[in-house]
């Protein structure tokens, strides 16, 4: 079990910067996730931790040991590859035993350990099969068993669930979380699926174009995004563009002839006259008039959709559209004027940026 630190790590492939000045401190026993759109450099960053890629600049530490130039086979990490990378010429047992055999562990000890690990990942009876005789989910478990067998200091999982169907994905992610918890092993997880990241992680790092944009618990990331990319990447959210009028306890933003008040997580980027966005989550709205100070937004109902526990509303406000979760105990009429309310503490004001 170790603590992993990356300090100003940069990795370039020709003109592409896959990891851009990444500095992170991943704690002992933590379940840490890299989340970001495809191609943002998550895999590369993880491979640098594993020693399969070496940074152009910066350093990597395991505890206090500088491992920046240490080859992968001297690092004792266990990486589960996105395609599982099971060796087709070896049985399940041989695959799982490989790391132990390489470490010259005595034969009977290897057999015992392999059996134990196969039980742990619920593959008890399949030891003599070859990888191509297994289902996707089973291959996934072999890949996991293979790295757990060596008692790695760090468990690295690169989109481990991306090749599984939706139901299996939820099942496996619970199982991975449970195994991780039981073994207390420092785990780095890569995914582009925000729900998955939120569900399993202690902390999440949001990456884009190689850069780490924000690090925090799932709640922090969701409720207090520090920039517009994160706010739109995570969860559903509507945004309205405006200009800052006044900055005090709250930030006043003028949008058309309406003024919204909100909080900001980025004080430096939000000054009077600045172009900003107000980000509002659908579930923070209410349609019943509240008693305390809320922002009031009036719009035209475009459509409503009953989805069970709530009814989703889409409103047009000026040139913006807003999504709002409303109680499902009444009916809403398309085309009608409607007022919706949102707490000022849930109205997040962020510097404007052009998103692609």
């Amino acid at each position, binding site marked *: 079990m170790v603590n992993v630190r990356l300090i100003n790590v940069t990795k370039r*492939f*020709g003109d592409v910067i896959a990891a851009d000045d990444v500095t992170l401190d991943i704690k002992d026993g933590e379940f840490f996730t890299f989340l970001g759109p495809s191609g943002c450099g998550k895999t590369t960053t993880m491979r640098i931790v*594993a*020693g*399969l890629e*070496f940074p*152009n600049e910066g350093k990597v530490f395991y505890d206090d040991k500088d491992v920046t*130039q240490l*080859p*992968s*086979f*001297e*690092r*004792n*990490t*266990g*990486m589960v*590859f996105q*395609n599982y*990378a099971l*060796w*087709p*010429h070896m049985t399940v047992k041989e695959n799982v035993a*490989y*790391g132990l055999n*390489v*470490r010259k562990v005595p034969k009977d000890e290897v057999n015992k350990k392999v059996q134990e690990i196969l039980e742990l990942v619920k593959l008890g009876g399949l030891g003599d099969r070859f990888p191509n005789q297994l289902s996707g989910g089973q291959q996934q478990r072999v890949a996991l068993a*293979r*790295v757990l067998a*060596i008692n790695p200091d760090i468990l690295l999982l690169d989109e481990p669930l991306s090749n599984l169907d939706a139901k299996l994905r939820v099942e496996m992610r619970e199982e991975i979380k449970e195994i991780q918890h039981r073994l207390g092993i420092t785990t780095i997880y890569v995914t582009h699926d925000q729900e998955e990241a939120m569900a399993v992680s202690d902390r999440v790092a949001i990456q884009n174009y190689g850069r780490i944009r924000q690090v925090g618990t799932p709640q922090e990331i969701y409720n207090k995004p520090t920039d517009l990319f994160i706010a739109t990447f995570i969860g559903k959210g509507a945004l309205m563009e405006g200009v800052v009028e006044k900055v005090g306890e709250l930030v006043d933003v003028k949008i058309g002839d309406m003024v919204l008040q909100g909080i900001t997580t980025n004080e430096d980027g939000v000054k009077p006259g600045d172009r900003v966005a107000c980000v509002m989550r659908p579930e923070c709205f209410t349609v019943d008039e509240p008693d305390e100070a809320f922002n009031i937004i009036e719009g035209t109902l475009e459509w409503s959709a009953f989805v069970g526990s709530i009814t989703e509303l889409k409103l047009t406000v000026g040139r913006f559209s807003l999504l709002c979760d409303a109680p499902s105990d009444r009916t809403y009429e398309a085309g009608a004027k409607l007022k919706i309310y949102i707490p000022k503490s849930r109205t997040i004001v962020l510097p404007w940026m052009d998103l692609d």
Partner: protein
Amino acid sequence: MTSWGPNFDETITRLRRELDPMTLIQVVIGYLTLIVFLVLPLLSMVIEAFIYQGAVSLYWFWDILTSVEFTSLASQGGRMFEVRRGILILWGIDHGILLNSLIVAFSVAIACSVIGIILAFIMARYVFPGKQMFQVLLLVPLLATPFVNAYVIGKLFDPRNGLINFILVDLLHLLPWRLDIDGLFGITFAQTLAYYPIVYMNVVASLNSIDPSLEEMAENLGAKGLRLFRTVTFPLMLPGLAAGAIMTFIFSLEDLGAPIGFVGARANPLARKVASYQIYSSFAEALTGGISPKTAALAFIILIVTASSYGAVRWYVNRRSYAMLSKGGRWSPRVKKPSTRTRTLVVVFLLLIIGLASMPQIGTVILATTDWATSGTLPTEFTTKYLSTLWTNSQVTQAVLNSLLYSVVAVAAMILVGSSIAYIVGKRDIPGNKVLDTLATIPVAIPGISLAIGYFLFFSDVFRDTPLDPLIDPALLIICAYMIRRLPFTTRSVGAGLQQVDKSLEESSMNLGANHPTTFYRIVLPLIISHMINGAILGFVYSMSEVSASVTLGALREDRVPITFFISQIVYGAAATGSVSIGAALCVLLMTVQIAAMAISNFILKQKTSFLGV
């Protein structure tokens, strides 16, 4: 592959990380082999060619390019399309040794291309009875019958008692004159029949990789027949055609089988007037006087021609290969079932080509298994006495054993070196990989005779009185020549296997604690072993029937001669002795080895490989 930055320290750190002992050995083996057995010998040849009276000079090149013996725009003799006493003479016109070689090679490339394209189209686009059988029979000329093949053609087209003349003129009265195919035209003819399958296979390969939707699209736009061919199909298959044609061009330039075969069959001096033959005959003098600088210059000129044309074609093919990529997955070829008349025509045409082209192989088998009355047209009785010389005649047995030994050692070496290079180039991030890759491809474009000259000059000088000195013992150099000449194919074959081993399979091994050597032996090797065995089998076949290095370096010591040298001597002397039957028996042995290897490769290893691997 990451690029290697200008940062020197970073490069050193990386090198230190990447170069474990095994990798270091592989890199060293790769470079050392290519430098000692390819670069330095060729360099020796170049140096020799540029020295005149102790100074650097273009004298020898000037000499070759200006003397009528080597280059002459005016005819120096020979006959073409002359009819004399009822005989149509097809010998070719002598334009000097160098020009003759170029004209012959160029004609062979053109003729092979025409035949190859027509055959490829018929086979790729039509269905007709016996198609699968024809597919196999079309490749018969690739069965190795060195020297004897041209000898057979020379004999069949002998104006006096050639079998073809007997059938066409005496029996069927189809032709007003007897044919006399010999000399330069004879060489062209024999080489065309031997090499067309190379173009054919390459064109078929690129036809099969053309996305049929491209043709269909063109058809929808109204292109039909010849126009469709000219505007869409032909441009798309050009890369394959160019690759095949350049190989036949190179093969023709370096070929010794046809000239020596014709000399043996007909003793016409015109068949000696090609560069390969001149270089070959200089080895007879090498025993006493060494190789003359003029021969080195000639070998260098031939090398420049082959290397530059190969380089140009490769550049072109690389640039164009995007067009050949079939877009996603398999497709069913656009095959048509033509009318009965067309089908009959197709079958007759194929039979004609196959009949002509397999004459040498059939003739070889007949020669090896029958006896003839003195200069008769047809054999008179069946015999096994020639085949039995393989184990009864001590000289023949010695040559067979020599070839076996050379081939086995050469194969071991080419697998070791070839897989080292393939692994380093394909899987490792070592600076200079591009250089290694290029060096390992070069032998394809080097005529064997030029390499042999280089070997002689370099090793008899720098390694004088060592086991590598060809004047002491040519065996080691023959082995090295086999190894180097076949190396590009072995490297490519192993490389193809490596490409199927996903990078992550090695990375996961290293991640679990295995260093590079362990990963190589336990993960990579088991996954590519069948490719290696296949490469070894093809390398063995190649080595057994290799000609250029065998007949030149082999000439240097009598008890070290390989099979092909022995055959060449028999065929060469046949004009005097009248019999090549023992040589034919050796060719039967070579063909048997080749067919067995093909069978193992196709049915046991399930590899799709061609006879030559070109």
